[in-house]
């Protein structure tokens, strides 16, 4: 028994419910027996990983589903020990090198080389190559990416790399050019709708279409989130009602409350309160860019036309600097302070205009 999202995950390329053309293409690619390095990218919840596992299954058969978790230990040149966890079957290995933080280069150098250098024992029953699946490639440091590019070429006979990431903008061009890019777009609202209906049908539930479309709306085309929301709704109340409130995660509610706090009062004291809330979000591993986006979405609702543009521009400005800096709280706070400043001015001017 597990959550619906895992329960109803398709396991083969033919069972995929959307982007079927692409699925067929991948299938053909694999049936040829060989394929280049892949770079799979697309937004979160679009089904990248699902597609990759389907592909692997297509490639190696059911054996690929027998997974094991392995721990690898490495020592960096500076004698620092790092531990990395991999998931491996007989045919492939899945690594997230960015777990090692800034030391990911060592992981790429040691682990991937080690795996890639080993030949398959029995190439008659198996493919001639193993697959190394690297996730969150966009979080790799530049060093690690450069370490990767040579490895990709050198061991191309014994291993294929599948890189998985959300955006290619942080992948260096050298790697992009060595891979076949596979873009997995987010499902459309209708697709999500239909999938939600299918899930409910399989569970023996009836889902009002209004609720389904509202969930699809709220999920911002993230299928995983949509299905999880659906389940949360079910947990909250069943049978469904069309006007049922879609359950949101606590952090989202918390973020919205924070935004409301900013709008309702602009003062140094309030800034300190907001700082506390921002800290709370950050410590709970909510990425700062998500926070700033969420804040902006809420703040903008209480702004006028021209102010909207200004606030958005500032949000983008601080989001960018946040990537350049070390301590994201500084930048989030600076954004809040900036907003407070311009919003207060805006309000006062509005008041003055009213008085006139």
């Amino acid at each position, binding site marked *: *028994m*597990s*959550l619906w999202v*895992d329960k109803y995950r398709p396991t083969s390329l033919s069972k995929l419910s959307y982007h079927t053309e692409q699925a067929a293409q991948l299938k053909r690619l694999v049936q040829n027996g060989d394929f280049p390095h892949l770079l799979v990218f697309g937004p*979160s*919840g679009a089904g990248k*990983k699902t597609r990759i*596992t389907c592909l692997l299954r297509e490639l190696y058969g059911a054996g690929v589903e027998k*997974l*094991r*978790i392995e*721990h690898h230990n490495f020592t960096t040149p500076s004698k620092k020990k790092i*531990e990395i*966890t991999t*998931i491996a079957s007989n045919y492939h290995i899945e690594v*997230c090198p960015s*777990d090692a933080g800034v030391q990911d280069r060592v992981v790429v150098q040691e682990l991937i080389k080690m795996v890639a250098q080993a030949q398959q024992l029995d190439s008659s029953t198996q493919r001639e190559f193993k697959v190394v699946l690297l*996730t*969150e490639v966009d979080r790799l440091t530049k060093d690690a990416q450069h370490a990767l590019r040579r490895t990709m070429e050198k061991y191309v006979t014994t291993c294929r790399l599948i890189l998985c990431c959300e955006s290619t903008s942080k992948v260096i061009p050298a790697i992009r050019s060595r891979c076949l890019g596979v873009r997995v777009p987010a499902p459309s609202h209708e697709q999500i709708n239909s999938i939600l209906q299918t899930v409910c049908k399989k569970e023996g539930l009836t889902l009002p279409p209004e609720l389904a479309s509202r969930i699809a709306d709220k999920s911002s085309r*993230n299928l*995983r989130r949509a299905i*999880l*929301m659906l*389940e*949360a709704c079910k*947990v909250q109340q069943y049978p469904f009602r069309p006007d049922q409130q879609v*359950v949101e*995660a*606590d*952090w989202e509610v*918390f973020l919205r*409350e924070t935004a409301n706090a900013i709008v309702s009062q*602009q*003062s*140094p*004291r309030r*800034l300190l309160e907001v*700082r506390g809330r921002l*800290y*709370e979000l*950050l*410590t*709970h*591993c*909510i990425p700062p860019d*998500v926070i700033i986006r969420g804040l902006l979405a809420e703040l903008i609702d209480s702004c006028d036309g021209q102010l909207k543009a200004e606030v958005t521009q500032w949000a983008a400005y*601080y989001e960018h600097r946040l990537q*350049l*800096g*070390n*301590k994201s*709280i*500084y930048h989030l706070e*600076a954004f809040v*302070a*900036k907003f*407070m*400043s311009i919003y*207060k*001015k805006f309000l006062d001017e509005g008041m003055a205009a009213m008085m006139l």
Partner: protein
Amino acid sequence: MDIRRFFGAAPGAGKTKPAQKTSSSAKEKAGVKKSSQTKRKAAVIYDSDSDGEEVPPVKQQKTAEAKSAKPNKTEVKTPPSRKKSDPKPVLKPTSAADFFGAASPTHRVSRTTAVAKKKTGFDAGKVVDSETNKEFHDDEAFMETLAELDKKKAAATSVSPDKKKQENGSQKAKPTKTKEDATSPKKTRDKSPPLRGSPKKTSPQKSKYFDKTSDDLKMKKKIKLESQDGDETKAHQPNAKKTSPEKAKSEKTPSPKKSPTKDTDQDVEKKPSKGGYRAYLTREGPRALGTKEIPQGEENCLGGLTFVLTGILESMERHEAKELVERYGGKVTGSVSRKTSYVVVGRDAGESKLNKVSQLGVKTLDEDGLLELVRTSPGKPYDLPPEATSKGKKSPPKKSPNKPEPAATSRKPAASSSHVGSPKKPAVSLDPTAGSPEPSLLWVDKYKPQTTKAIIGQQGDRSNVKKLLNWLRTWPKHHSGRQMKEDGSGFRAALLSGPPGVGKTTAATLCCQELGFTYIELNASDTRSKRSLQEEVSEALTTRSIVGFQKQGTKHAGTMRQAVIMDEVDGMAGNEDRGGIAELINLIKHSKVPIICMCNDRAHQKMRSLVNYCFDLRFQRPRVEQIRAAMMSMAFKEGLKIPPPALNQIIEATNHDVRQVIHQLYMWSVQDKGLTFDQAKEASKQAHKDIKQGPFEVTRKVFSSGEETARMTIMDKSDLFFHDYSMVPLFVQENYPHAQPHAARGDVKKHLSLLSQTADSICDGDLVDRLIRSQQSWGLLPTQAIYASVLPGEYMRGHLSGMINFPGWLGQFSKQNRLKRLLQELHMHMHLRTSCTKKSLQEDYLDPLRRRILNLLVKKETEGVPEAVELLSAYDLMREDYDGLLELTEFKGRPNMADKVNSKVKSAFTRAYNKEAHMQPYSTSVAPKKKRGGAAATSVDMEEGGEGGDVEESDEEKEDPKLDPMIKVKKPSAAKGKSESGKGKGRGKGRGKKSA
């Protein structure tokens, strides 16, 4: 070279009559006619010649000597004196315009003024020199001829050549006529007064000068006239050359303010006694700062005067004005009283002060008046080092005779005597005698206090030394019977604590000596481990020194007592002194002799245990006056001359460290016996003790406004950052919203925009920080200092409301890391079942999962337990992961669903989970984190399962930070079992909540 040669006039022709004068003028005309362009050349030639002329004066003097022995002597004596004092100020201003005005085209402008000057000068000359009628007449005649010349030339040539001619004429006239010779310098002299900024002052000065010059003239008559002439002219020319560019400048600028500067510049060159003007002010500042040059007055010329500054002075900051007054021996007080000599009134002066001024009839000055006062007030005329006397040094305010004089000069600038006969001169002889004693001893040792009374700042009855003496005296009485008493005297040891250089060690040793204790001193240079303490000290304490026997017959005989002085106990650390403190405490407990311990920082961690056993005596830094008095007497003995304000500077710079002050003085005495205010200021800058400030103090300084920060330069401000470059940015960031910026003036909008600017600047600092750390480019630190500390300070300058907080970032950061680890662990455990990244795990997955589980536990209670366990194991989660899951998904201020779970259900849930064996795809023993959890899961549950269930969630949170240090502490001691049980307890409580 003599100018006269150019004009072919023989020096011998000096005694001819006016007729000849006209002839000379005729000659001159001819010269002019030759060509105006040659004149230009002639001017240039003068220029070049003048350099060479410096030598000849001696020659000429020598020739003069050869001629007559008697006059020579007088001559030899007089010229230098004249050079130094009178003729110079007189001569300088004249020549520049006369000789070189023509050379520069700018003079066209100044021509009329030059004429005007001449005339005024001429008038003055009339008045002054009336006694020498002849001269006067000649002068007039000469002027007339000059005027004629002028008219004629004006018609023919342009203005500037005109002038040249005129000058040349005057020049020419000199050699031909002796009387004219005499007058020409006079004329030049005459010109000087108008140049001075304030006419009121100049006239008396003039008169004085002229008196002198007239004296000179008399002298001249005695001497050979020619030689005199030569001297004069020579003196003339170099002067002229030096001053000419300045003059040109000053004449260009119409402002009268500048003229005094030029004047004084000339002073510098000629008169060592007066010194020169110096550009003293800093040029920064918005107003008219630095426009007025501060005069270099005579030493101690404001001695004994008391000033009150009020309002805004246009050209200097208040502290500069104060410094100025103090430098010349004056005193600046805050409020007007009867004793106030002057009130310096600036713009927007305080009402109340002005009222008081009018009530008390105190004299007022404006800014210029103050400068004037400095410039004109008499001090000691010659500021030569040997003149430095202890008396002068000690009692500059006592110098009463000066008092009335400056007053007079300032009111009516007619003060006639610029040089006051200084009564201090005879004191010169004192110096060498005092300076002689054996130089081998450092002053610190030489002037070490010999009695407890002599310790600086410890004279009072309630002073620490008194207390220490009493304590020592009564020690045997109190501790003869072994019981400890509760009052302060019950301690067996004393702990003297205080900053370095205040006399702790001195106090201890002196007290022992005075009470006849023999003492053993152990300091940081001795090994003070447990063993050596035991051996050495206890041995020493149980034996008696032979000194006691030798001293028999003296008053302490027989009663020879002992004490132990443990100096620098806070230095007892490291491997060498292992166990030292503990042993010391042990010694103290059983000691039969008093023990005196000393340390700098009694709040230090290492001292914590010791403090409880010691009589606590805290030494404060002596006040400035206390140190100064002692230093003054010492300086007197050493023949070192130092003005009190200078000494204050040094004392403050060394942060009231007596020892260091003495060292500084010693160092200075080696170089020079006299120390002026400026030197002392410079020295104090060098001597400035770098005091390390804590980040709290730094943060306060960053944001606070007022005296101390107003004076800080940008470098000082960025230095604040460097007190701790890793902590200060955090402190600033934490506390900037608390600051109330004065710039906002209570306007919320402005305040907010300042906040925003500050936050932006802090962000910039963060970006720089990232660069520094990632690329090791530490050279950027000053940049970060500006962004992270200086700019925020500037924006938010005001006052901090509330106390300064410790940066929350550190705590939040470690919490974030802990939760990150939790998330990673969850991710790893769930990874086989899910396909998401950590990010989406937290954003999307965990919340629904928690809802699902909690829903089961809350709604179905115990019936839901099996299902919940099943769900956990479906995701390969362990019981502990469930706690982690809750922690990751709970936010402050959001309804806490986990609280709704019945504690009975919770314990049932735990039991149900533990009953089954769960196959996990990962090894649970590899990571130490998991081991923790495992141990807790197996061992603790049984014993603590029934414990109170109402332990709150916050309890768990509180414990978490405690846990971390525990792990850190215990790991090195390899007490794994302990740490596990500790952990177990922490967990157990958390679990208890669920179970009970």
